[in-house]
């Protein structure tokens, strides 16, 4: 499907979504609350069939956090990017690990690195950081580690 077709199709599914075509792939901005219902449709819709979630990450913009989901369809080979702006004070978004199992690990990584709380995640524990990690989430921009120098 071309970007135009994708746009019309997704607009049907979620009228309030906004689109951005400046990047490599069609980018869809959704509110955190709208993301989970949309995700279910994206996976289940036979003409979209986004079954391959190949990248989940988060960007710290200091004022807010942006969750970024890269989706691919192994059947139609079209890609989209979903972005969802979440509050920096109380970062939370619903998990999609029941739709794409790969999200389980990726969301755990985002959880410990950015402190995003994934609602209904089956196993939201620290994956990379040592058990009992206290302190800021390391990938946030204002994280300072006096022991292990990161900045030069």
């Amino acid at each position, binding site marked *: 499907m071309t970007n135009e077709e994708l746009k019309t199709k997704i607009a049907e599914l979620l009228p309030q979504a906004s689109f951005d075509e400046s990047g490599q792939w069609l980018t869809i901005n959704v509110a955190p609350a709208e993301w989970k219902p949309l995700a279910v449709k994206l996976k289940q819709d036979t003409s979209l069939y986004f079954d391959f979630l190949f990248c989940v*990450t988060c960007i710290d913009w200091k004022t807010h956090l942006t969750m970024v989901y*890269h989706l691919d369809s192994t059947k139609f080979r079209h890609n989209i990017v979903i972005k969802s702006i979440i509050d920096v004070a109380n970062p939370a978004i619903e998990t999609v690990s029941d739709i794409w*199992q790969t999200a389980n690990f990726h969301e755990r990584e985002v959880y410990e690195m950015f402190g995003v709380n994934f609602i209904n995640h089956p196993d939201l524990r620290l994956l*990379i950081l040592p058990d009992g990690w206290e302190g800021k989430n390391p990938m946030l921009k204002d994280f300072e580690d006096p022991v292990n120098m990161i900045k030069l």
Partner: protein
Amino acid sequence: MVEEIGTTTDGDIIINVGPQHPATHGVLHLVITINGETIKKVEPHLGFIHRSIEKMCESLSYRQFIYVTSRMDYLSSHINNHACALCVEKGLQIEVPSRAQVIRVLMDELTRIASHELWWGAMAMDLGAFTPFFHAFRERESINDIMEETCGARLTMNYMVPGGVMQDIHPNFQTRVKNFITLYKSKVGEYNELVTGNIIFQNRMKGIGYLSSEDAISFGCTGPTARGSGVSCDTRKLYPYEIYNQLQFDEILETGCDSFARYMVRVREMNQSIRIIEQLIDNIPEGDFQAKTKAVLKLPKGEFYQRVETARGEFGVYIVSEGGTTPYRIKFRSPGFSNLSALDHIARGSKLGDLVAMMGTLDLVIPDIDR
């Protein structure tokens, strides 16, 4: 004595495999729950070699950050560097000279063979056969020698720069690659004699570690792991970069969905890489090996994503630029991370000895998972 430590009420035993364990090939820590010899649960604990490369890259310039990525998947460091260089070139819209493109692809494929060779030896060693490991290293060493001569290093080459490659190929490069191809072709039959055809090996591999194609996609598995389940996911074919769309090679697909299928994909992939090298080695175009670039690279504001096919699967670089000399945020989508997440799923219900074989067929490189 034994009851006191790590035993659950229903007689299951919890065993820590790793961080120091011969089968994890690194510092992977798996907490496995077993009942007798049967695995009930596998729970990976990561982070023993986490260096926060993504954070480090945020303070490095677009020329500098490429070298760090060699330290992630050190067995396909070249391909990681390639992905980063491609992503920066995509942002800057640099046209890479065709000579550089051919050299890059040649190096990629040599790296892929070297990585698969090492995997093949380690895989056999996981199953208790020590000899193939050394036989695999014989061929791998000759690739490393070629790399050393042209790139100046054996493992973490840092040969890619935005716009091309750092140095031109060494004058001996073509002869040595041809010698390697001859060596490889004379020795590859031994792999089948020693391991592939062996009845013990086949029985250890066939039918274990079943990963259906739906699960492979859902777990985000890529590379030979997914292709062993019949999922077409070769980025070189699907989203061709460099000159891959002009080359003749097959995407290897196996439909067995088990460990043996994943094994066969890798073994057959080596032959395809040889095929690519044979097409290119006599046809390296003349010209520059590097495009003219500015001394200080500044990516325009925006987001850039580049997918490449490493030896382990799809490697993605996601650069978020604010227009400065350093990236605002970099995300590396490493294939091992997603492949590892499928381990629990495929290992449940199988024997402890099979866990080792499954980990072998997933071809885990721990720095790639931890980053």
